[in-house]
């Protein structure tokens, strides 16, 4: 079941456009934020509300890299290795996360806590090397900072 807050947000967003289908991508992202991934139910509901076929919604999901239909970890570590970050050790940060968590690109730990993703420029180039955990930015990273962050996230999950 989609929550009432999500449904009322849907109505709000759809009303912003002269063409309802404009709302598809925002709605998918908001649904994903709440559910953790894009469920079949969310696809059906969005399609119904913006008056398109479910397949058209699925078509969009395949295009946009932030959208995913499978559940991922509670904390998604998105490490940038694009050029500004690469020059300052972005690949080493990715490698470090991978070793530390025992997972590779687009994988999730067995406990469902962490996912790892190598991503393109996050717009944090002056704070390179950088990553995002879900929507939060972490910049000027070192392997030690990453270790501390992972510990903090674990502690946060236990609360």
């Amino acid at each position, binding site marked *: 079941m989609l929550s009432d807050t999500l449904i009322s947000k849907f109505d709000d967003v759809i009303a912003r456009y002269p063409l309802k289908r404009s709302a598809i991508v*925002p709605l998918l992202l908001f649904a994903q934020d709440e559910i953790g991934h894009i469920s079949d139910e969310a696809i059906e509901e969005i399609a119904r509300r913006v008056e398109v076929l479910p397949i058209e919604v699925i*078509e969009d999901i395949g295009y946009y890299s*932030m959208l995913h239909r499978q559940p991922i970890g509670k904390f998604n570590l998105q490490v940038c290795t694009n*050029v500004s970050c690469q020059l*300052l050790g972005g690949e080493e940060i990715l490698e470090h996360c991978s070793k530390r968590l025992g997972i590779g690109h687009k994988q999730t730990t067995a406990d469902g806590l962490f996912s790892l993703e190598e991503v*393109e420029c996050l717009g944090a*180039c*002056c704070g*390179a090397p950088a990553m995002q955990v879900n929507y939060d*930015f972490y910049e000027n990273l070192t392997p030690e900072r990453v270790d501390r962050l992972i510990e903090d996230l674990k502690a946060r999950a236990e609360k």
Partner: protein
Amino acid sequence: MSDYQSYMKGSPFEVKVISARFSLPDSTSIDTFLAHEGYQALAKAFQMGPEAVINEMKNSQLRGRGGAGFNTGLKWSFVPKQTDKPKYVVCNADESEPATCKDRPLMEYDPHQLIEGIIIAGYAIGAHQGYIYIRGEYRYLMEVLDRAIAEAYARGYLGKDIQGSGFDFELCTHTGAGAYECGEETALLNSLEGLRGYPRVKPPFPAVVGVYGCPTIVNNVETLCNAPHIVLKGAEWFAGLGTPKNGGTRLFCLSGHINRPGVYELPMGFPLRKMIEEVGGGIPRGKKLKSVIPGGSSCPLLTADEIDVPMDFDSLAKIGSMLGSGGVVMIDEDTCMVKVAQRIMKFYAHESCGWCIPCREGTAWLKRLLDRLHGGAGVTGDPDTALDVSYNILGKTLCPLGDAAAMPTISIVKKFRSEFDEHVRLGGCPYERKSAAVQAAR
């Protein structure tokens, strides 16, 4: 949130126009904005009338900060005046050009400046609806903007009959969800219509047929942030800040091998050497500079001998590169340029939307070739093949993503050819061997 100290380190060479309010306490609130000239340009624009605003914009020599550098006032003037269709203003806040992180502080520290710029644009072209298309990763900025938009509505700067002017304007944010191609204006319009972000054929240009088939201007965040200052202080003042045909200042994002990475507002035409040495504090650990990406990864790279150049659109074009999006990346002597080319191509191969065959196939081919070359399995003909493939992408695609992949590659292969040949000769990367040897000796 971004760390203010880390992004806005400040420099005595800065000329602060669009970043002037960043350091004010509570800089995002409408009260702070109003106390510092906020929304005064809008009032002035209402007195001037749309035609005069467009002329002022044209004469200011403001050129698009999204990358292409088109004269903004001229773009606005292409919107048809006699039309039954609604018109739209779309702010491009997709900021995805690698090495570019300047729209972020503009939205984070002074959201009302952008909102005022968008309303002025709307008034000038006769639009009553604006969208801010913001990349999905910038979620916290969407929240900053949504709050600022709500404030503007509450105080009568958005909505019906703005400040008694009779002019109506609605504005909202729209989120993308991860796709570099959606920064390209026609792909962005498709994305805004709920479709995949594939580019459209031009002409017709968006100014005539844009979103929902209606006249639309698409402008970058930084471009729009300049509009209030031009209206308030005049075209002549603005043009005078920069170099001929390159008005105003620019937010330059210095990154890579530089002592003081950060975003700096400098006059257009600021000398690149001075930017590196005095604003950015030079290259760390006393290393020598090898190369510079002057304006995001889509631009041809410069060698260390080419840095005596004023940073404006025309001067960079003259030496075969581009000012692009303002992302300036310094690369030091210990860096393998084949690896740089490889990483840049990995990006374009990943982001190619697949619509045009030369781009889809060409970037994938180049990626495989560069992976192989850097990995040690390159053959003698590879560098020439890389050039050949690049030239077969250049100019052969609907949108400039293909060019953006080809141009840096061509420049790196040509300017650093000996490094490519060395990889082939050694069957591997000389830089990785060197660093492995250094580590072994420790």
